[in-house]
């Protein structure tokens, strides 16, 4: 065997991170590049459902079977990212009995454990379900944190020697003699961890093979080499409630439809979703009717949603793909299956494969197939180990010890820290100094923030997705300056200020879709805290210099325009 092949993986979502981990574990050299943070694209904008496969048990049984297989694998290798909530497919009186029976038999055919429960039993499990529901099918759906999962995959890849570059946008594919030989990237702040204010630059990364795992952005990468990759991005809204109205995944048992799922996720419940084809995965309308539809339609299943508080909404873009000859008009008809496009076979351009379509739950399986494909190119015979080796955080971790006492944390906070960190709890929480809570809504302590900063540079949004800090009710109102201060132990003030502003802007973006009732009151309070109490909207550090000598310097002190205009002339600096 020759020298170790170097593979460039484009895309830091679940697929890209899964591929990078798999290839790195098989001993290949890997560089993963991502234009934003890890999960920046579709992965960071999903409802967090770990599919049992039940949703596809009627329409797409191949996908359903893959889902239940991978559901079992992820419970094992990613236990610290998964909460096995269980799921229900709930039938209302007006929903079709025939479809209910098809769902049940479909689950059986695909090997998905499914059981019919009466309306009464379902309401005993989930008391906020509507009184008039008929019955339900219970399935092993779960909730999964996509951020933690991808960060853990990237960390594992790194442990196996991979290079991970976030905030590095691919600007070109390097093509020589009719073959892809690498990529050109623009680093936002230089290679390595992101640090605000660090000068960026272009880098050419030569590679023996390139994997395009950019999902809805795959067409853009293809364009750089004149390839036509017909991804059909389809947007869906997700609306986040401030509490968990349900502790079980609630699906509406009817054929495809909008607004038919509620996923309990950490401290929240996420309502989803819509399915609308869009032209541009980065620029599409986010509309009021979509949010209203989530609340109005899902209130048929869970009436209290109508009056409940939402904290934000976000949209994700599915990277749907169908072979050009199918020609579905409706995006809901496009398969959820994934496709591996070898551009040598397909377009006579060797050196690159694109992976498109697919679903989050089967990310690992997609990574395995791509890794097999790449290894095949280089005649490497190495087994895939990603289904057996737990991710960092899920290693050998079966008993929740009494961490509360051990780390001096109040019990709910200690419990949540440990749930998030899994087997890394010891390593992260054992600190010398006091470990106060930085984010009260989500129970995130200083030690976790510091651990996340170590992994993500000066990027507070990257700290956010690693820890959930600022993702609760107050949406950063109370904790964003605290998170900024935590950065200051490592980074200079101007870097901190830039990162802080960026976090505030990001938190505002999704809240705009929740601005009525309680959350509008919350937004008004946050505005008052940031603008009135902290004066961040008129911060002189960001604006014009202030003539301090023109203001009150205290009773009987020098300075102040009223009684000592002459002192103001020397800038007030000689007052003492």
């Amino acid at each position, binding site marked *: 065997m020759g020298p170790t092949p170097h593979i460039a993986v484009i895309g830091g979502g679940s697929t890209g991170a899964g591929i990078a981990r798999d290839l790195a574990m098989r001993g290949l050299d890997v560089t993963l590049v991502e234009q934003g943070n890890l999960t920046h694209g579709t992965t960071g904008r999903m409802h967090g459902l770990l599919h049992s496969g039940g949703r596809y048990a009627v329409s797409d049984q191949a996908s359903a079977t893959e889902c239940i297989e991978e559901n079992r694998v992820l419970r094992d290798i990613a236990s610290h990212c998964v909460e096995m909530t269980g799921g229900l497919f709930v039938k209302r009186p007006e929903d079709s009995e025939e479809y209910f029976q098809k769902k049940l038999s479909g689950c059986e055919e695909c090997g998905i454990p499914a059981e019919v429960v009466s309306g009464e039993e379902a309401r005993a499990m989930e008391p906020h379900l509507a009184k008039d529901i008929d019955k339900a099918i219970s399935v092993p759906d779960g909730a999964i944190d996509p951020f933690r999962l991808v960060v853990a995959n990237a960390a594992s890849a790194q442990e196996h020697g991979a290079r991970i570059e976030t905030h590095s946008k691919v600007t070109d594919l390097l093509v020589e003699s009719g073959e892809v030989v690498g990529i050109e990237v623009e680093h936002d702040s230089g290679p390595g961890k992101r640090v605000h204010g660090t000068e960026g630059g272009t880098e050419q990364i030569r590679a023996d093979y390139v994997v395009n795992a950019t999902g809805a952005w795959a067409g853009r990468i293809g364009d750089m080499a004149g390839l036509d990759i017909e991804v059909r991005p389809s947007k869906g809204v997700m609306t986040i409630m401030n509490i968990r109205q349900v502790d079980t995944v609630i699906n509406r048992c009817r054929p495809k439809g909008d607004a038919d799922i509620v996923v309990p996720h950490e401290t929240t419940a996420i309502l989803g979703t819509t399915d609308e084809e869009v032209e541009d995965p980065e620029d599409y309308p986010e509309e009021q009717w979509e949010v209203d539809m989530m609340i109005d339609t899902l209130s048929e299943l869970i009436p209290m949603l109508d009056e409940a508080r939402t904290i934000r909404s976000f949209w994700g873009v599915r990277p749907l793909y169908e072979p050009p000859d199918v020609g579905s008009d409706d995006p809901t008809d496009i398969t959820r299956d994934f496709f591996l496009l070898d551009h040598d076979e397909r377009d006579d351009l060797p050196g690159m494969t694109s992976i498109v379509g697919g679903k989050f739950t089967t990310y690992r399986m997609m990574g395995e197939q791509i890794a097999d494909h790449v290894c095949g190119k280089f005649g490497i015979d190495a087994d895939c180990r990603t289904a057996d080796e737990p991710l960092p955080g899920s290693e050998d971790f079966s008993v929740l010890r009494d961490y509360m006492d051990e780390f001096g944390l109040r019990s709910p906070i200690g419990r949540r820290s440990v749930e998030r960190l899994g087997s890394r709890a010891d390593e992260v929480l054992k600190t010398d100094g006091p470990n106060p809570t930085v984010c009260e809504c989500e129970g995130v302590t200083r030690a976790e923030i510091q651990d996340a900063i170590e992994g993500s540079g000066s990027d507070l949004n990257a700290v956010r997705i690693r820890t959930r800090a600022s993702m609760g009710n107050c949406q950063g109102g109370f904790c964003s300056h605290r998170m900024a201060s935590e950065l200051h132990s490592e980074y200079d003030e101007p870097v901190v200020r830039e990162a802080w502003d960026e976090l505030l802007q990001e938190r505002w973006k999704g809240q705009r879709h929740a601005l009525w009732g309680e959350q509008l009151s919350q937004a008004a309070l946050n505005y008052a805290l940031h603008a009135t109490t902290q004066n961040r909207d008129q911060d002189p550090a960001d604006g014009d210099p202030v003539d301090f000598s023109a203001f*009150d310097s205290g009773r009987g002190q020098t300075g102040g325009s009223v009684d000592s205009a002459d002192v103001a002339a020397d800038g007030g600096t000689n007052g003492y």
Partner: protein
Amino acid sequence: MSLPTEGQMAIESEVLVIGGGLGGLTSALAAAREGADVRLVSYKQSTLRQASGLVDVLGYTPDGDGPLTDPYEAIPSLPAEHPYRKVGVGTVRDAMALFDDAVPTYEGEHTDTNALLPTHGGSIKPTARYPAGASAGLASDTRDTLLVGIEEMVDFDAPHVAAHLDATGVPFDVRGETIRFPGDLRADAKVTRYAKLLDTNSEVAVRGRMVPAREALAQRVNPLLEDEQRVGFPAILGDDNPGAIRDSLSDHLGVDVFEVPMGPPSLPGLRLEDALFSALDEAGASIETGNPVVDFEGEDRIEKVFIEKNGAKIPNSADQYVLATGGFVGKGVESDREGVYEPVFDCHVPHAADRYDWFDGELFGDHEFARYGVATDDDLRPLDASDDSEFENLRAAGSVLGGYDFAAEKSGSGVSIATGYAAGQRAAQEAR
């Protein structure tokens, strides 16, 4: 809900003020000092505990010009719907004089010029009045400064605040140091715990020796002090005895000591609330807290309001009423997906029909919601959709008023004091 009301004698007063924040308290105080028989009812904790305790009048114009050196000078050119324009600049000055008289622990009345104070985030903000405890921290004072943070306290990171202050261009050198607070407070102790320890000056163990808390705190800071002539702490220096605590620390350290105002829960805000309640009590008003106004009777005039208490609706009647229930933050203005409303009297709140017009896409953009509240005539009577007064004996004060963005202008306290003063005084005069 139908609650028993029959047979209840109404609790009577000349002026009934609904709301216990800065607007309501000033309003009740102004009415009481005018000689009226005043009753104040408030439901929830006021938003003062969330405010820094600084009393601003006007820091920036609605166009964002500023920081303004003279807040009064800018008032006549504010938009016509601004509450300051309704009451006029003379009333603003009179109202501030009432405040100065009622709350002697505040400073800044010696000049019309705004002061700039450091904030706990590290920026500076313009304000007209400040607690005595903050006065040694003015940013136009050129003395070099040491800021001291507490390791366990995530809201005030002294090295970060110092570096940020330096970036605002303050005319002095500033440095931040972090200490462990003496005594065994747990990592997530609330500010009130620190304050209590300093208030009682209880002894804490320092290297096996028992030392009073104030002295122990000073001992931690002393070795860190270089040539600085003043030391700033986060606002935790006592709830009951802040002056004595500062003096004591100052004696031990040999330099002036000040507090940097903080976010919620804010001790300076709570101290201000206490001071105003005491002043109101002294002025002879009757005060009832903890119960909401849930209903009222009356068409053109409010005849009575009903306060829910222990499951019963207690009628309260007055000749004149003041609505000082707060804005969105205090829940004096509420909203749902369909619109914005005032929940007590259902006074008209002008607002855009489409809720996506209520806010701006930018975090600190021009948010319409920030200016939502009741519109009034020049006598502060809320107006309905046809610009007629809703009730002839109702006035509104404080952030339930619309037409201004207190957060952008840094005018929240001043508007509450000025409109509270005007509404209370006029209500009292009319009730005579």
